């Protein structure tokens, strides 16, 4: 029981820390989802908004962690954990939203809302090199997809000879703690997820290479080199993440066919690699992710994402006139979908539908 509490407390803390440091890791000229020039960010009032945000987030974290530990010690219910995570995330979001609105109001009162410099630099050589790497990483993304195909085929071939009760979950000691009736649903639900995630990774990798990067007009060559290195490192980390997840998914058919999971040592290595990989991704974002050059309004290149009017709550990007499917996030690290784009809408709705489908399938399979 102690192991479970530690694990859940750890996850809880990770979520808290990622939100606490989101603004620090966010791209330059953004402050809690609002476009603010780097030089203006230093205003005392703005720093106070940030401090209040951090304090309120921390209070929520401590309270909900205490509540979780209290209830969990009475009744180890995973639904309780989900509820705590879900509720604390909602509260975190509302604190962020309040901060965002305060800063937006402050900006309207104190700074000009019209962007002075709207110069764009197009470098055909850079675009060509980016396309080359986009193709390379697209091909690499096919490897996890092939693992998914192979896993699925193995299950199809062996389906008739599978026992009527199949192991669905193993505990930390490697013993089966949950069986399910053999059915197409229970056997192939993991394959469904496996394919879904592999395909999602493939498209996200491609779209991240197609996304705009902003350059520093006073350091064009250096910022271009940095942008290229950033994309390649993200592509590499995404690929390793995709591969690790694919291997972990592959354990399911393995466990069904052999009746046990790989040794604890192998599982440990895989999980450690996963954490190292995620840590590496965060380090890449922190170092390269559009934060390197502190630019003045005159030296920065302009991009459609700089306009506040396309952003909802500083979180959702909605621009039907923008052909880009993914743009860099304002608050936090990584990219966000352009929900004004027709493909963007499909991705958003599709992801929601498939998430509920996956949960629903899990319910049905485990009845």
């Amino acid at each position: 029981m102690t192991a479970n509490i530690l694990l859940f407390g750890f996850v809880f803390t990770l979520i808290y820390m990622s939100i606490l440091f989101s603004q620090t890791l966010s791209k330059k000229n953004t402050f809690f989802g609002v476009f603010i020039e780097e030089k203006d960010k230093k205003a005392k009032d703005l720093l106070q908004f940030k401090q209040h945000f951090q304090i309120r987030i921390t209070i929520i974290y401590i309270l909900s962690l205490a509540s979780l530990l209290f209830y969990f010690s009475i009744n180890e219910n995973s639904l309780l954990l989900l509820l705590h995570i879900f509720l604390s995330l909602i509260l975190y979001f509302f604190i962020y939203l309040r901060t965002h609105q305060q800063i937006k109001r402050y900006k309207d009162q104190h700074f000009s809302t019209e962007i002075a410099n709207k110069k764009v630099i197009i470098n055909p050589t850079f675009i060509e090199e980016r396309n080359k790497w986009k193709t390379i990483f697209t091909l690499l993304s096919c490897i996890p997809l092939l693992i998914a195909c192979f896993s699925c085929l193995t299950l199809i071939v062996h389906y008739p000879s599978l026992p009527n009760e199949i192991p669905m979950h193993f505990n930390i000691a490697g013993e089966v703690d949950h069986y399910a009736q053999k059915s197409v649903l229970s056997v192939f639900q993991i394959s469904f997820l496996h394919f879904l995630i592999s395909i999602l990774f493939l498209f996200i990798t491609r779209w991240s290479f197609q996304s705009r990067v902003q350059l520093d007009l006073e350091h064009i060559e250096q910022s271009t080199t940095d942008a290229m290195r950033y994309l390649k490192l993200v592509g590499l980390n995404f690929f390793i993440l995709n591969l690790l997840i694919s291997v972990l998914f592959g354990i399911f058919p393995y466990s069904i066919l052999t009746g046990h999971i790989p040794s604890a040592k192998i599982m440990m290595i895989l999980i450690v690699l996963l954490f190292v990989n995620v840590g590496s991704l965060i380090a890449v974002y922190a170092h390269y992710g559009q934060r390197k050059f502190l630019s003045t309004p005159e030296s920065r290149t302009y991009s459609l994402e700089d306009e506040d009017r396309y952003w909802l709550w500083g979180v959702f990007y909605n621009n039907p006139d923008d052909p880009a499917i993914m743009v860099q996030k304002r608050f936090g690290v990584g990219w966000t979908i352009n929900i004004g784009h027709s493909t963007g809408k499909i991705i958003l709705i599709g992801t929601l539908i498939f998430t509920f489908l996956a949960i629903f399938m899990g319910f049905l399979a485990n009845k």
Partner: protein
Amino acid sequence: MFELDFNSEKPIYLQLYEEIIIGISKKELHYGQSLPSVRAMAEEIGINLHTVNKTYNLLKEEGYIAMDRRKGAIINPFPIEVKDTQHEEWTHTLKLLAAKSILQGMDEKTFLDSCKMAYKQTGGE
């Protein structure tokens, strides 16, 4: 390297058209090199595909690029073949420039010196 300005009075398709021509003239782009695809260019700038299409079509009509089905837009070899209408337009642009210069009080020598400098700066030898 093309520089576009969204704050400029000049429409983006025209800015891109001019930047590409100057880029080719300055030998930043060479014969046989592909321009980014219409979609890639549109995504990079953040404008509609039709706008980029307009630019590429204009460049194709005037003979600066050719559209290949596989490779996309490729830079043509030089010198390009100039149609009569194109030469008329060139002469007209030159006359307009001369007229503006005269009205600004420029003498002939200054005008020619400026022309020489512009010619050299955009890749002429």
